[in-house]
């Protein structure tokens, strides 16, 4: 079970898209996991053959639990598949004789992210025998029952209560995807952690984006509506390019130190109708062509709002962009999504009297803000980073 966010402790496997014997290649979607953020499609990070499914449907397991066993091509050739340990089984180091080289264990498939601290939810849920039997008799999934007994144990009365009010929770659970209450809980945890742990500093920069608007207008004139570029794509691209140049804003602060990321995966804050927010990643936003970036943005927004995000998208943004331009707000200061170290905010593009070449004229202006982690960078670097974003937006044809 990959960690799909710093605050995730467990996930529920709701769909397997592969079966033992299937060949998979890196990046294939193999399963769907339900988390507080909705249904997440799990991609595989190894190429090979699915050997064994280890976690059944509708099972909630802690982060780090192996979901399936894969025979990689290398293993297949070496015939060592049987010796492969379950990916995340705690490795018991065998003391080798000092003179002998340490035996090379078949490397387990890398987890999408290094596992976080051992999840507290790893312990088996406590269920009294009477409660278990009652639940079985009525086909109640114990994962949907809240325990009120000692140490949160599920007792008979809890299952009875669940039987009495079976509709609300069950129905909500059944629709794969969005549980807005759970999402709110997840946002609350992440944002509280951010404000508690990250010393934010904030900068604002006003940028003339007239050139961008004009360039977009000329590009879009000949295109059908669904092929048009939006200024949001330019904003994301400019942040991605600036982040590549200023690595202090692109990466993760973990275990007391900053780990810059070579890849730039820009998280895009997407509001969900009815409440809730997710910031899945546009991978390699600094490299893909602008048209593809735009297409991916549309796809991402659509999928996020319908509650299907892929595991890599939710787990690996290296910097986030948030924009409230559509909502009419001129300036916004974002809260960093841990363990990232920066978030760039765009307000609404407004027409302002602006001095250009000594003359006052109407120009399109946008406020760009930076909230950054002071443990990693300072205002000076932040100012250069913001200025770089502004400069990039002046030359849209180069984006």
């Amino acid at each position, binding site marked *: 079970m990959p960690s799909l966010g710093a605050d995730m402790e467990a996930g529920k496997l709701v769909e397997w898209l592969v079966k033992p014997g299937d060949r998979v290649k890196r990046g294939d979607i193999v399963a769907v996991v339900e988390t507080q953020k909705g249904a997440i499609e799990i991609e595989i990070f190894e190429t090979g053959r699915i050997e064994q499914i280890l976690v059944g449907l509708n099972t909630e397991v802690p982060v780090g639990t192996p979901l399936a066993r894969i025979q990689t091509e290398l293993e297949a050739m070496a015939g060592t598949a049987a010796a492969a340990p379950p990916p995340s089984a705690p490795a018991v180091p065998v003391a080798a004789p000092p003179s002998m080289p340490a035996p090379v264990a078949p490397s387990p498939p890398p987890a999408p992210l290094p596992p976080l601290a051992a999840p507290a939810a790893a312990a088996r849920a406590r269920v*009294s*025998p*009477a*409660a*278990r*039997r009652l639940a079985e008799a009525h086909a109640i999934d114990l994962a949907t029952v809240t325990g*009120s*007994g*000692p140490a949160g*144990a599920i*007792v*008979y*009365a809890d299952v009875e209560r669940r039987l009495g009010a079976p509709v609300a929770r069950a129905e909500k659970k059944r629709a794969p995807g969005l549980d807005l209450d759970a999402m709110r809980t997840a946002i609350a945890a992440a944002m509280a952690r951010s404000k508690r742990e990250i010393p934010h500093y904030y900068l604002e920069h006003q940028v003339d984006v007239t050139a961008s608007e004009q360039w977009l207008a000329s590009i879009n004139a000949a295109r059908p509506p669904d092929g048009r570029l939006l200024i949001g794509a330019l904003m994301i691209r400019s942040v991605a390019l600036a982040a590549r140049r200023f690595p202090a804003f692109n990466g993760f602060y973990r275990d007391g130190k900053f780990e810059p990321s070579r890849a730039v995966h820009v998280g895009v804050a997407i509001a969900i109708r009815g409440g809730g927010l997710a910031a899945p990643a546009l991978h390699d936003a600094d490299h893909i062509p602008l048209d593809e970036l735009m297409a991916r943005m549309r796809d991402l927004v659509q999928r996020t709002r319908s509650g299907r995000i892929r595991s890599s998208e939710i787990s690996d943004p290296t910097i986030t962009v948030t924009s409230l331009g559509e909502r009419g707000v001129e300036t916004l200061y974002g809260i960093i999504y841990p363990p990232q170290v920066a978030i760039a905010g765009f307000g609404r593009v407004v027409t302002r009297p602006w001095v250009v070449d000594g003359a006052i004229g109407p120009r399109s202006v946008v406020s760009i803000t930076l909230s950054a982690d002071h443990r990693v960078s300072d205002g000076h670097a932040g100012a250069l980073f913001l200025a770089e974003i502004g400069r990039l937006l002046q030359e849209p044809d180069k984006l």
Partner: protein
Amino acid sequence: MPPQMTQPATTEITYRDAMREAIRDALHRDDRVFLMGEDVGRYGGCYGVSKGLLAEFGAERIRDTPLSESGFTGAGIGAAMAGMRPIVELMTVNFSLLALDQILNTAATVRHMSGNQFGVPLVIRMATGAGRQLAAQHSHSLEGWYAHIPGIKVLAPATVEDARGMLWTALQDPDPVLIFENVMLYGMAGRLTADAGPVDIARAAVRRPGRDISLITYGGSLWKTLEAAAVLAGENIDAEVIDLRSLRPLDDATIMTSVARTRRAVIIDEGWRSGSLSAEIGMRIVEQAFWELDAPIGRVCSAEVPIPYARHLENAAIPQVPGIVAAAKAALGRV
């Protein structure tokens, strides 16, 4: 089921007097019955149970014995095998250990070892329990040990009805029966119907019906447990109280029926905790009613120390009402 605890036309009687009535009744009913033990005759029994019986029935049937538990218990076994119906009184369960060889190696085994040619229709009565400041050598509760032995029956009358009725039923049994009388009960008074007589000894009794938890006990702890149930009722916990009455054999059906309904159990046993009767009962519940349980089974037992002399220490060493209440609440997750 035993007779109802309260009925019209009752008289008030102490447990001690009810026991004496039972012996007198048996002596009248069957001239093979006789009582023997230390000080049962002229002194009237160390707890006064047999007071007056020597004058009424004579030295042939109320026999004082030397201080030799093994000797007169063995004599009782011989008399029983020879056709008599002896009642042997041992002053306390502590002293009964001197007769343990006779009880375990002879009385309990003769039917088996004789290929069913001989039985031992013997009744042994003894006092058990703490609470009278008689110190360690007079105060232990070892009935659980006897309940371990195949070949005998072990009874623990807790009410005046059972004190009055169990003896005759025991005398009808073709095999040895041990009756344990808790020393704290002798002075307790209860109401007894005029026609009170033999009682069934095969079944446990539900002394207080309830739906939230089963409190399983016997003998002297029954009354503390009923008191605890009243305290729990004040906190909206409806406790069922089961009086085992027979410690061997145990009435599994009554226990399991109750636990299946309440889904929780606490066993109150004045014996020491380790290897106790409560351990046996708890294990049987797990074996037979595991899937009915909603909480770990609880136990309230005696502290694993020789019972102290000092009153406050003695009280602290044996089960008391607050401990029973606390254990019941813990089982309900209401600490």
